[in-house]
């Protein structure tokens, strides 16, 4: 039974997991923003309009790599209806955000096709587009490189003449495209390989993919003549967006208020800053509100794809299935600036296994492609694809069931992880066992059909968070959170507050506040929101309970220690038990004016203890030997959620992650020509999975409580995209007797592999 006494507000209980009987948590109520979203009323980034607003458009480089010799905007400025033009000259150097500055508006060079060069604000889109054509840019074209392995070569065209590889001792004195090197592991891999009966070594490649959110980046900005700015737009992190934009535009943070609109998908790709400072600068120069939205072509060419990769993996095991050593070297290119998640790739590669000897090296590389952005478990899907493919091959080689092989080597409580820390509590084994017992693991397969399994890992993050709860006079409760709701988190916030306070779900309402209404909150990323904002809500609710008990004590004129909170009511306890009728939250709220005024709770902290997350996916495919087409027959996602607050939305995260992984495995790919230009910058040619490509996606929610959260919650958003690449590759391998080492496994690639295999026979 959930109950607490009238403790001092500062003691809000512990972060530690405490088992309890949940009433609201674990149910599936309708989300608070649902009706607005099914009726078209919800306002996304591009749905906001301000009176007298101008339309902003960006001129982008047609070249993948060139010196920016000169930009002449005079003719554009003279065009009737044009109210402002901005270029690099409008933005001062900025040390703290140098790369973002260079990315939002090219400075001395353009580094990729689509790099912003200038922007215009005009009274109509047609005039803005006409003005872009009148801007004269002189480029001095340079050689370019878009492939990761090519970019690492000594004679590759160099993007930044001040880039010296981090993480190499001593630091090189010549510039290169290698931004950094990192290494993780322990033991002695050479000695481990000595002990192996079988060693398999392979190279893998994966293509860059785009997050593919359906809503393009959009914002509306206004700046008053005394330099106060307001910005509205779709972002995963309006506090970070505010800080960076204010800095780039040269404004005090307190002078810029950012409101996060409803957000039409992000998956990491909207943790970024692209249009916003430009929009603010156009608004400042023109003295009018300016609205900007990317076209889909711009989204592909100038917003964040994930890294492409080239990887070597070597794993050895004994005949009875014990892995003796694992080695991986991963090379990720993340576009024109630092930030390719090679470190995460190296850290996640072997995280599923308890290994005595393991080493993973990551290389972070820059190329003439758009600045990469986070994409759901950034860096993990690729390295895990490579490792899990080799693991599958080893299991086959020793004739062992692939789940048994994984169980034999799986990381468990107390094991030292492959990336350093010791695992405290993890649910990998539970997901493997659930996979083994799942009916889909037993269904007989037909000709050309195969079954694949893979596991995956993501760290999960906490971070800076604060939240406020206000008790309204009628006893309802308003929650303010500072983390944009990207997949239904407002519902889970309401559930957690209702759970703590003991009131019905529909008496709680959550909103995402603007940046002036709460302290700094980190971005919605790292699967952190339900964990971190949720815990802030729980602690703020506990503070409220303390205050409600104080108010009840005042109303009854007894000591606060003699009041306890149970099922939404203050109850006299101890010596006073039974002396007074319990007081409901609504009754105390109604009387609040006479007992000290409004009642609110707040919690601010840097959230720690986000539990690690593991999942196992099972997939059956059929490979058409005539066309190379892969059909997904059955798909099952099994993942540890710690505790599912709203199980439907947890399932939704599992299903969405899996289907993005299916796209990555089978279709999706940034295709570059020799000219360094993206050849498929549209949904027709960059094909996301559509409904007719897919079966239903089965889910199993495993709940191994996270010891670092009062309800046991673990983040669930990201792990779901980690196993599918490997699971599908393993399934295809089983179906067609092929080991596909390059993604995507598009029909032409599979057909080629089939023909090669036939020729070899």
């Amino acid at each position, binding site marked *: 039974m959930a109950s607490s006494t009238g403790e001092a507000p500062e003691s809000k209980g512990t972060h530690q997991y405490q088992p309890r009987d949940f009433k609201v948590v674990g149910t*599936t109520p*309708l*989300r608070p*923003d*649902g*009706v607005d*979203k*099914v*009726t*078209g*009323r*919800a*306002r*996304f980034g*591009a*749905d906001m*309009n301000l009176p007298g607003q101008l339309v902003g458009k960006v001129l982008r480089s047609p070249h993948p790599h060139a010196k920016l010799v000169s930009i002449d905007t005079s003719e554009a400025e003279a065009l009737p209806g044009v109210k402002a033009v901005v270029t690099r000259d409008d933005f001062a150097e900025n040390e703290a955000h140098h790369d973002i500055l260079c990315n939002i508006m090219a400075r001395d060079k353009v580094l990729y096709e689509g790099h912003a060069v200038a922007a215009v604000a005009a009274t109509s889109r*047609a005039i803005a587009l006409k003005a872009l054509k009148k801007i004269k840019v002189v480029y001095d074209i340079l050689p370019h490189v878009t492939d990761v392995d090519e970019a690492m070569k000594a004679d590759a065209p160099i993007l930044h003449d001040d880039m010296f590889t981090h993480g190499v001792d001593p630091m090189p004195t010549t510039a290169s495209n290698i931004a950094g090197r990192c290494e993780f592991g322990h033991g002695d891999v050479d000695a481990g390989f000595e002990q192996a009966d079988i060693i398999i070594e392979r190279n893998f490649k994966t293509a860059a993919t785009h*997050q*593919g*959110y*359906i*809503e*393009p980046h959009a914002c509306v900005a206004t700046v008053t003549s005394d330099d106060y700015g307001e910005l509205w737009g779709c972002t995963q992190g309006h506090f970070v967006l505010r800080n960076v934009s204010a800095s780039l535009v040269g404004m005090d943070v307190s002078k810029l208020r950012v409101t996060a609109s*409803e*957000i*039409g*998908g*992000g*998956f990491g790709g909207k943790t970024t800053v692209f249009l916003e400072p430009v929009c603010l600068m156009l608004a400042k120069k023109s003295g009018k509100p300016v609205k900007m*939205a990317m*076209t*889909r072509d711009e989204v592909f060419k100038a917003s964040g794809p994930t890294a492409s990769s080239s990887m070597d993996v070597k794993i050895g095991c004994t005949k009875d299935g014990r892995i003796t050593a694992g080695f991986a070297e991963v090379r990720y290119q993340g576009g024109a600036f630092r930030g390719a998640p090679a470190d995460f790739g190296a850290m996640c590669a072997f995280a599923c296994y308890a290994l005595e000897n393991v080493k993973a090296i990551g290389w972070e590389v820059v190329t003439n492609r758009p600045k990469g952005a986070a994409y759901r478990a950034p860096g993990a899907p690729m390295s895990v694809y490579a490792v899990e493919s080799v693991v599958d091959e080893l299991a086959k080689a020793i004739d062992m069931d692939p789940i048994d092989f994984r169980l034999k080597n799986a990381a468990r409580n107390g094991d030292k992880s492959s990336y350093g820390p010791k695992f405290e509590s993890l649910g990998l084994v539970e997901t493997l066992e659930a996979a083994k017992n799942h009916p889909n693991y037993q269904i007989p397969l037909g000709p050309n059909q195969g079954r694949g399994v893979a596991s995956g890992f993501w760290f999960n993050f906490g971070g800076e968070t604060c939240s406020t709860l206000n008790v309204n006079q009628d006893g309802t409760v308003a929650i303010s959170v500072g983390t944009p709701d*990207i*997949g*239904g988190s407002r519902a889970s916030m309401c559930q957690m507050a209702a759970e703590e306070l003991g009131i019905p779900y529909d008496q709680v309402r959550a909103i995402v506040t603007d940046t002036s209404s709460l302290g700094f909150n980190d971005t919605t990323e790292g699967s952190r929101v339900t964990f971190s904002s949720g815990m802030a809500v729980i602690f703020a609710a506990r503070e409220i309970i303390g205050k409600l008990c104080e108010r009840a004590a005042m109303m009854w004129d007894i000591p606060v220690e003699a009041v306890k909170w149970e099922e939404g009511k203050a109850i006299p306890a101890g010596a006073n038990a039974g002396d007074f009728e319990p007081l409901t939250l609504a009754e105390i709220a109604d009387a609040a004016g006479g007992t000290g005024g409004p009642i609110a709770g707040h919690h601010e902290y840097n959230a720690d203890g986000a539990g690690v997350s593991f999942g196992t996916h099972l997939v059956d495919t059929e490979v058409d030997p005539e066309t190379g087409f892969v059909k997904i027959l059955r798909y099952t996602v099994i993942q540890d959620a710690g505790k599912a607050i*709203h199980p*439907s*939305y947890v*399932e*939704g*995260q599992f*299903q*969405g992650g*899996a*289907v*993005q992984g299916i796209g990555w495995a089978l279709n999706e790919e940034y295709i570059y020509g020799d000219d360094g230009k993206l050849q498929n910058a*549209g*949904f*027709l040619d960059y094909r*996301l*999975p*559509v*409904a*007719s*490509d*897919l079966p*239903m*996606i089965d889910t199993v929610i495993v709940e191994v409580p996270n010891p670092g959260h009062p309800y046991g919650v673990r983040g669930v958003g990201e792990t779901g995209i980690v196993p599918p690449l490997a699971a599908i590759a393993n399934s295809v391998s089983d179906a067609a007797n092929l080991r596909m080492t390059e993604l995507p496994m598009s029909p032409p690639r599979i057909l080629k592999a089939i023909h090669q295999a036939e020729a070899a026979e």
Partner: protein
Amino acid sequence: MGIHVSTKINGDDVEFVCDAEETLLDVLRDRLNLTGAKEGCATGDCGACSVTIDGRLTCSCLTLGAEVEGREIGTVEGVAKGNELHPIQQKILDNAALQCGVCTPGIVVAAKALLEKKPDPSEEEIRYWMAGNLCRCTGYDKIIRAIQDAAAEMRG
């Protein structure tokens, strides 16, 4: 030179003036403030801009504003009857068949058009009909179930 257009939107007479190159989606969103239809691509590939014209499911980004003279347009804003949600809207909520919700207006319009044509579609028919509506968040599972549930309820 603006073009004057008289049309009906969600049953109401509407007149607007648009430029020759403006799409119906531009007109709905920028001139009439009907922002339920979204621009996901402007090339007919995502379905976020779905509307009906004389009952037929259409991408409003591929139709010119000037083309709808005398036609009847249905948008997501007209699907609920006042505050009463259409079964497809209710079932999308009940099934948690949305995450970010930006595809949802298009899904609502497209699914309603399907069920008006075919009250008892198979799963495969639903999947092929909906293949023009991209959803990046859900993996479609819950959307398909919502449409199946709505179909069952509408058949009574």
